């Protein structure tokens, strides 16, 4: 919309209705989508601040690098598959189809739940191996960041479950189109966050 153009106009010179039904400066997008965009920026700020703290903390003398458990590669695969299925269900619903919608949409959620379970299993393995939260800062960051990521995913699953209930109780796919689209964006975002987290956690 040309931010510079917008904020350099002289409002005292222009009279009359400007912009027709939609005033200048509104995004041609649903309000929910705009809200989600803002939320993603906020979540990015939260994760970035943790990552900055991680790097600053890493430079202090008591830092002990952590060797990441190999299960994480498997967990990553689950999350990628979940994201792919979400994209699939989004494509179906955007085209107005219904074939495979249930498979893809429910599959995506189930895979995400499996991811969280797998993350918890990994936590248990670490605990069993004697890596407790307070043992060293690297492991503390590991628990903190993976936990935070899982919490975001659980928030997403809450929206997913509401949408799933509407679908199973006979809702038209058209009614849940926006929810599925936004869920997909959110899932891709969390996948991206996870890949970055995995990279920096592995890279000590």
């Amino acid at each position: 919309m040309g931010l510079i153009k917008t904020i350099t106009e002289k409002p005292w010179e222009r009279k009359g209705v400007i912009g027709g039904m939609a005033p200048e400066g509104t995004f041609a997008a649903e309000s929910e989508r705009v809200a989600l965009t803002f939320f993603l920026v906020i979540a990015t700020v939260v994760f970035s601040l943790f990552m900055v703290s991680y790097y600053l903390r890493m430079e202090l003398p008591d830092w002990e690098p952590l060797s990441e458990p190999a299960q994480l590669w498997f967990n990553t695969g689950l999350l990628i598959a979940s994201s792919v299925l979400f994209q699939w269900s989004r494509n179906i619903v955007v085209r107005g189809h219904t074939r495979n919608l249930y498979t893809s949409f429910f599959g995506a959620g189930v895979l995400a739940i499996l991811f969280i379970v797998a993350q918890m299993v990994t936590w248990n393995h670490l605990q069993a191996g004697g890596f407790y939260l307070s043992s060293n800062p690297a492991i503390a960051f590991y628990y903190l960041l993976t936990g935070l990521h899982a919490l975001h995913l659980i928030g997403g699953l809450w929206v997913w479950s509401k949408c799933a209930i509407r679908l199973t109780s006979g809702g038209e796919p058209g009614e849940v189109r926006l929810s599925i689209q936004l869920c997909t964006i959110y899932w891709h975002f969390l996948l991206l966050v996870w890949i970055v987290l995995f990279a920096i956690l592995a890279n000590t």
Partner: protein
Amino acid sequence: MAYVPLADQDQDMEMHHPHSWVEKYVWSQDHKVIAIQYGGLAVLTGIVGLVLSLLFRMQLGFPESVNFVDPNFYYQAVTMHGMIMVVYFLTALFLGGFGNYMVPLMLGARDMVFPFLNMMSVWTFLISVIILMASFFVGGGPTGAGWTLYPPQTTMAGTPGHDAGIILMLVSLAVFVVAFTMGGLNYVVTILQYRCRGMTLMRMPLTIWGIFVATVLGLFAFPALLVACIMMMFDTVLGTSFFMPAVLESGTPLDYEGGSPILFQHLFWFFGHPEVYIVALPAFGLVSDVLSVHARKNIFGYRMMVWAIIAIGGLSFIVWAHHMYVSGMNPYFGFFFATTTLIIAVPTALKVYNWLLTLWEGDIRLNAPMYFAIGFIFTFIHGGLTGLFLGNVVIDLPLSDTYFVVAHFHLVMGVSPILVLFAALYHWYPKISGRMYNETMAKVHFWFTFLGAYAIYLPMHYLGFLGVPRRYYALGNTDFIPLSAQDLNSSITIAALIVGASQILFFINIIGSLKWGKKADPNPWGAASLEWQTPDTPPVHGNWGENLPTVYRWAYDYSVPGAAEDFIPQNVPESEAAAAQDAKSPESNGE
């Protein structure tokens, strides 16, 4: 993606109409009721903060005169006063209160975009306040670590409230951040998407610009507080060492090792500095509108005011370390932050000049809101100028732990925003309540508050130059502090008590006027912006009756040459304005 004509969507917005008293006033989704809930709760919390300040002022002015104010209580009172005033009072009142009330009305919308989320926001805020207040009743009492909560002392024995108090504080802050995020998303999306026909961004009143940029700052700055709170909570409860270094407590080493207390300071001030502007920017916006209306002139340099708000918002994220000059940082780092800090004075000064030039040759109506608005210009200039001193590393170092700093930040971010709050409350009171307040009482309230604030904070600058340290329970026998400093301290306390007591006038006025006030005209000040043009006063649920307004001009058409009246409301089309002008001209020819 399909284009959605948003103003249409808005027009037919599904309203959640209340069915009972409880739904109307308790679980309400109406932005105006939520605004009053937010504002009322913030004011109640603020009163607690005020009483705490009077208690520790008693100790400073008349040592040991109040028997339960011992050193522990003193630190707890100072800490809670700071945190309550900055976060739970000013932030909540400006954004939760005024943000909720003004945004839909000034933009010509029926409500916020997400009314349910809005309701959740106020109830979550209530939970955070309850958790905060609960810390007064737990063993050990509330935290006394100072409102900045610096580790390691925050969580160590010797600091009052180091066990339960600090945990409740951290939880309460985290819950507050959640509440703020829910509200903030609402304001931002409403401002971007729910403006009525013709309301372009550059036609919005400056109040909305201030609230908009402040909300964006809040959405990006509060996460830093959240991150700091979470990590400190881990350190306190789960024994990690994010912030806690290897440290001795009463001679015994604790289980911590290698954490960085400075990291906490960076995170805290990355939130803490923008927080100053989260409070200041809505105040700048509100005061601009009050000044313009009561001076019967358009705001001077509207575009520059908008640019200044945006510039201040942007710059506020790169000045945080000026709160940490004494932390032993790299001098080059300090130089960078001193530079950015001084640069921020440019847009701020620009705003001050524009307010003064708005008054210049205006047809000034000295109503109570105008008293407070002009009072704000005074205190803001004084507080802002001492900011230039403290922004320089070499001047900050000797002054940073003295009363000079207390004087600076209370004038600039305590007294100034509060004067704006009073200006705004008196200014919009007729619209919010449908009644007029008592003008004389409001002016008496102004003089007590304004002169009293100077009687409190001006002497603190001298105390600071003498080197009187802040944060001390008692000064003891120190050679460099003359005995007369104690007299000054006593006079400050007396002034504080008088100012505190005079606030009763305000409450009598606004509560009494609800019953005995004269019925207010829908637009008593002759203001041009949209919130004064509602069909009902106070506005009812849905705000605009059948049809949403359409906007034909900016919000500052005051004293337009040739116009019938000295203001043209935003929703008056050109043709009507011209017709009114024609109707007027034969009459004026006849004179």
